[in-house]
């Protein structure tokens, strides 16, 4: 097998590898800015310099040549090489900054040059704390600057588009953003303008950078040149917790990170998953952070004499139990939801099955025209396939509306059926409507009983995307009944670890009075004398895996290990375009 020697260690490899990527994959480091694994390598930042050479092999024997000391003879390339576009070759010898002074010096020289026209105002820059330039300068840069002449000045605070702001002075011309619009989103909206040290990225004059994927350029900008108009200056990165999650605003199941501070989700960024979304996500999904914070239902609500009032949990549970008991089973319709997780749907169905109610039905949530052939599908619900795989009956709009017409008690699991015009408020008027919901909506508004449940940011649960991949969320945000410090799975940020009660960012206000669906089901079952004791999503998934054949082999551990699991779905059910 071909072999390569990096900093004196021997590694075998197969296939084609860029040396920089190879080194990174080994868990080692060479600093760089312009390289991005999903785009072409222009080698323009010149930061990833390494010393490269080749062990000489004898033409006749094919053996390595050795010198008089028995050491292998190396023919060094005449110049240092950028490792991002250097292809690994058999017998190649690479020295990085770890072992070679010349390389170390070259990287330091290059950083000095990058910094001469870059504002040295990290403390007021929004990128500080997650800035590759800042980090690499600390690690590999010069200790001071010898630049004592005037910097080049360029436009600042340019609203490039509705979501992206440019500070051209911070730009180091890595061209990641322009390459993104050329190679990934293919809108070709950005170009570098001018020439030499006056260069900076821009749109065509008078045009907006309204690329539906524009915010990815903010993610990949290695400096503070491109920032999110919405997020900039809202929070320091070190004040936030980063929690892996799944985009629940679309069926594609884009892998994301939720960034939390004081129990508010402040932003959403894409998380790499080669099977789903690579490094990218649509701008649309980023808005979703608001649904975790705003307009939430906190504490159960009940309609008394046509008036919505807050209710106690006990009262709410008892009310629903009584309604079910008082209604003819044939007159109860249970509506499962493609907007709720597999575990929530399962928990509800287990309860209603034990009560021998009609099996849950659901209707998919398709919005024609949303799909773009990239990371958005027409199916805008995160778990349509989950409902299908659980064996729930899928009804179209008119069929489900007919079911509802026949019923006296309508139980809806987190699906805004009125808002999305599946049923009208009028059709529900004379029925008792109980909803389990995360956010206020028209549907919740007309409901007689509203039981607040956790969002994807507050529970660990699974969703099956349009392509049949099951992936799960993690708890990113505390509810009134959870505590980050005793929940081992919740991420702990600097503030959690070192903050005190006197720190002004710690408030109780942002914790929602809601519960995971399965805990509510436990309580409902208890009230009905049934034996259901769900502990958490992890256990429920184990139970599903052993009882529903479609999910066999699925577990949280397996999903974590494999970044989701591909389930077999019927081809025609996939709405991914």
């Amino acid at each position: 097998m071909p072999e390569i020697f990096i900093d004196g260690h021997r590694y075998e490899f197969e296939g084609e590898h860029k040396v920089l990527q190879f080194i990174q994959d080994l868990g080692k480091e060479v600093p760089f800015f312009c390289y991005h694994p999903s785009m072409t390598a222009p080698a323009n930042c010149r930061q990833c310099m390494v010393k490269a050479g080749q062990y000489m092999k004898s033409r006749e024997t094919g053996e390595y040549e050795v010198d008089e000391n028995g050491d292998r003879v190396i023919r060094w390339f005449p110049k240092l090489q950028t490792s991002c576009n250097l292809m690994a070759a058999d017998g190649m010898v690479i020295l990085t900054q770890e072992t070679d002074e010349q390389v170390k010096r070259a990287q330091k020289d290059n950083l000095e040059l990058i910094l001469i026209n870059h504002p040295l105002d990290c403390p007021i820059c929004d990128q500080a704390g997650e800035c590759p330039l800042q980090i690499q300068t600390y690690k590999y840069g010069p200790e001071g600057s010898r630049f004592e002449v005037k910097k080049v000045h360029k436009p600042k605070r340019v609203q490039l588009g509705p979501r992206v702001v440019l500070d051209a002075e911070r730009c180091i011309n890595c061209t990641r953003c322009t390459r993104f619009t050329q190679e990934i989103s293919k809108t070709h909206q950005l170009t570098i303008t001018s020439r030499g040290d006056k260069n900076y990225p821009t749109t065509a004059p008078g045009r907006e950078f309204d690329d539906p994927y524009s915010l990815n350029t903010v993610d990949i900008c290695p400096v503070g040149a491109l920032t999110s108009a919405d997020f900039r200056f809202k929070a320091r990165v070190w004040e936030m917790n980063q929690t892996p999650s799944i985009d629940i605003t679309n069926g594609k199941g884009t892998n994301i990170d939720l960034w939390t501070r004081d129990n508010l989700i402040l932003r959403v960024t894409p998380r790499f998953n080669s099977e789903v979304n690579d490094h990218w996500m649509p701008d649309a999904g980023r808005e979703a952070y608001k649904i975790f914070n705003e307009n939430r239902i906190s504490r159960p609500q009940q309609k008394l004499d046509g008036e919505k009032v807050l209710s106690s949990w006990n009262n709410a549970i008892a009310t629903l139990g009584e309604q079910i008991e008082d209604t003819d089973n044939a007159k109860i319709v249970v509506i499962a939801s493609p907007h709720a997780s597999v575990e929530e749907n399962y928990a509800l169905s287990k309860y209603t099955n034990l009560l021998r109610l009609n099996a849950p039905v659901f209707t998919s949530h398709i919005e024609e025209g949303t799909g773009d052939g990239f990371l958005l599908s027409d199916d805008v619900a995160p778990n349509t396939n989950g409902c299908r795989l659980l064996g729930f009956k899928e009804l179209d709009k008119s069929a489900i509306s007919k079911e509802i017409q026949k019923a006296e008690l309508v139980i809806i699991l987190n699906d805004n059926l009125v808002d999305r015009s599946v049923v009208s408020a009028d059709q529900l008027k004379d029925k008792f409507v109980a909803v389990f919901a995360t956010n206020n909506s028209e549907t919740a508004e007309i409901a007689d009983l509203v039981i607040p449940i956790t969002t994807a940011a507050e529970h660990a649960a699974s969703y099956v995307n349009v392509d049949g991949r099951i992936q799960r969320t993690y708890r990113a945000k505390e509810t009134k009944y959870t505590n980050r410090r005793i929940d081992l799975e919740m991420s702990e940020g600097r503030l959690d670890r070192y903050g005190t009660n006197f720190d002004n960012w710690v408030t109780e206000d942002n914790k929602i009075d809601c519960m995971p669906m399965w805990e509510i089901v436990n309580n409902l079952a208890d009230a009905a004398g049934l034996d259901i004791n769900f502990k958490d999503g992890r256990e429920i998934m184990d139970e599903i895996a052993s009882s529903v054949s479609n999910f066999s082999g699925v577990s949280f551990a397996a999903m974590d290990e494999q970044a989701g699991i591909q389930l077999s779905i019927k081809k025609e059910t996939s709405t991914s375009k």
Partner: protein
Amino acid sequence: MSTVDWKNYTPVLLPDIKDLHKIDVYTKNGGYKALKSVLTDKKKWEGPKAVVEEVKKANIRGRGGAGFNAGLKWSFMPPADGGPRYLACNGDESEPGTFKDRKIFEYNPHVFIEGALIAAYAMEITTIYVYIRGEYKTYIDMMEKAISDAYDKGYIGKNILGSKFSVDFYVHSGAGAYICGEETSMLESLEGKRGYPRVKPPFPAQKGLWGRPTTINNIETLSHVTGVINNGAEWFSSIGAPTHPGPVLYGISGHVNNPGVYELPSGVPVLDLIEVAGGMRNGKKLKAVIPGGSSTPVLRADQLDGITMDSDSLRTVGSMLGTAGMVVMDEDTDMVDVLWRIAHFYHHESCGQCTPCREGTGWLEKILLKIKNGDGEVRDLDLLLDLTTQMEGRTICALADAAAWPVRFTINRFRDEFEARCIKKAHAVA
């Protein structure tokens, strides 16, 4: 060192023939004979490979500045696969001090066209582009005319001179960017993009224009091909300096009485060349010479004894032949001003694609401006020298080197003059 007999040399690229730019005059004087020979004389030229071999043997070292054997470059083209292959002729000449190819466009365009056609035949090229800097609008028009005349006469187009060889020939105008003289940047510009040099490998012979095999040659280089085919490789390689043979278009500018382009053999002594150009203006003394365009290291007058205009001789005193665009400076020349102006040029022309050049060229200029204005300090000179090492060999193309060399060598060779312009006082302590 044998001296080159340049006094009895008769120009071949730019001979003293009236209206040679007209195709009829050109053909009357033996024009397109070489093309005819390679296309039709199968006894003499077995095929394209034979032409490549002859040119390789002639050792035409690229006249664009890099000095690489043109025939050898041609031999890097992969075997023809039926797809398009390109010849890109580099007429972007923009290196300060260089103004020779325009003479070919003006006075003898067909010797170049013929050479390019032979090159195209030799490399089985399907389309030729000649990239001419946009400022040469007059010469672009002249070339358009010459190419159209050659089309009319059947030297370009389908089945040239009844052979199976067909090729198209187009002019592509630049629009003001020195960097487009860099061969891969020129390809980008031809493809309609910002002139950013390409990362190599892949080399143009593998992936050039539109990802297809492409060779890039300088105008003068290609023009010499015609003579090599007509008179043989030996004829060419016996002219001038043996290791860098053939006629050279010397562009002489600066403080001489008769500046201009002179066609002479390679290897003319530098001091003789100044005499060829009428000697020093106003009877002043010679101070310095930049031998081959602004990027080639400057030489002091006292370094020039016995030095000839060829790469070997110039290397002995630490310089290069470059484009043979020689800039002559007299005793009144302010080397600080000159170096600042050169640095200004490279700063202005850096494409900005890669870091060391984009940032370094500006920094060099700014420090030199400070020194020029009398605000510099001696430590700035050392900073400048250090910066050159941070730029050289670290970039995608050679513009950073071209910007760094003049700084390094001008300071080293005229250090006293630079120090004299610097502030002498120590920094005040309080």
